[in-house]
């Protein structure tokens, strides 16, 4: 099955950003049992996050973040990679499995069971923060100047 890089980046990012436990819980609820083996068992490590001086200039090392990664292979030979923020092995394994399944003919079912709920949860989370933030936006009014 042909999968575009853009699509794959989209679902991998969605799972990486998800709240702890959600990827694994949604996948297990979907009951999509598949035979697979680990090419790389879930592994916790760090990534050095970089920034840029002045926001746009020279790259510098800001500090590390924890990341869990996992790689699995389905019986059909499809390989899936999972990278999630934090220390959460079940989510990394689930993310790898979803990544693999999304490249097979079960993509639609997986997307409906796992990715769409994650997408709407994230949208709701962001909208809630954005609307609270918007309520703290300052409305200036100019005082009438004496000389006018």
């Amino acid at each position, binding site marked *: 099955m042909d999968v575009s890089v853009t699509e794959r980046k989209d679902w991998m990012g969605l799972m990486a950003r998800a709240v702890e436990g959600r990827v694994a819980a949604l996948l297990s609820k979907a009951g999509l049992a598949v035979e697979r083996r680990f090419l790389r068992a879930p592994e916790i490590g760090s990534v050095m996050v970089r920034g*840029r001086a002045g926001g746009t200039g020279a790259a510098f*090392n800001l500090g590390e973040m924890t990341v869990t990664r996992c790689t699995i292979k389905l019986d059909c030979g499809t390989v899936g990679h999972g990278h999630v923020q934090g220390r959460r092995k079940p989510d990394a394994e689930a993310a790898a499995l979803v990544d693999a399944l999304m490249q097979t003919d079960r993509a639609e079912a997986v997307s409906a069971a796992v990715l769409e709920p994650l997408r709407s949860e994230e949208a709701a989370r962001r909208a809630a923060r954005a609307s609270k933030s918007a309520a703290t*936006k300052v409305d200036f009014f100019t005082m009438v100047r004496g000389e006018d």
Partner: protein
Amino acid sequence: MYVAVKGGERAIANAHAWLAEERRGDTDIAELSVGQIREQLSLAVNRVMAEGSLYDPDLAALAIKQSRGDLIEAIFLIRAYRTTLPRFGASEPIDTADMTCDRRISATFKDVPGGQVLGPTFDYTHRLLDFKLAADGEVGEAPTRAPSPDPVPHVTGFLNREGLIEEAPRDDTPPPDLTREPLELPADRALRLQALTRSDEGFTLGMAYSTQRGYARNHAFVGELRIGAVAVEMEIPELGFAIEIGEITVTECETVNQFKGSKTEPPQFTRGYGLVFGQTERKAISMALVDRALRWEELGEDDVGAPAQDAEFVLYHGDNIQATGFLEHIKLPHYVDFQSELELVRKLRREAGVADVAEAAE
């Protein structure tokens, strides 16, 4: 005389057992969970992540619990844990222009596109103790308003258009990493920024304040301060493209500094930069002021001998784990060293003809 000493194991074990009991405190009071610390002491958690140099709120909360709220001890725990992790690689530099801002203010431009957004701030509170918090924890829902879809561009971009401010051109040179190579001088700006972002908040604040009081004064205005979430992307070799591996909250401060020009640079505004993990605005503003002071050489300014201009002084004393490690080690047993000091002083006194108190008494 040298005497080998060994022992204290039982005393140490008992001390640690008592420490655990004291950490727990009165068992009639409910125990704090790591989740409670993460959610309700989030600014302490942010400080531990920033200075521990590891973004993981749960670990930082655990460290705060374990350290009984001693944040430097918590930072120590995080730094130690960090060294046990395999490093998967480095991210693409985060794009702070693309931040989902909780807060975004400018002290220099009232009408910035995107607006002045206060966010969850202590500013404009009256700093009066709120005894309601001691009674019950009930809080109402914060008011909401439909968010504007307008972009929130960096403030310095406007001044850039007029050529009134120095530019920060993109540079993808792999930056030095002080967690891999010892920090050596001269330190370029990338290395200084790494050291500053993890340096002690109190030290950085003191250094920044010294520039405001006149030690290498550089007339800083907060051009922009923003706090919010940014995506972290990393190139995955197995995939051959970059994916998002998470989202972190950071605080970014850009100062706009008055500058009359120098032998090498025209009159224009110059910039200081602060970028710190979490909601940590005091630290980010401090970092920007100190960054600007340390840039005197590349901007062709005079070294006026101010502490904040001295890269060696600032960078070698800002790390609270290095500092506390060296400082606190002097309380550990130094019996042997001190024994030799004692012998020396006795010898010098004999040579100087001072009678020992013991001898005089005889």
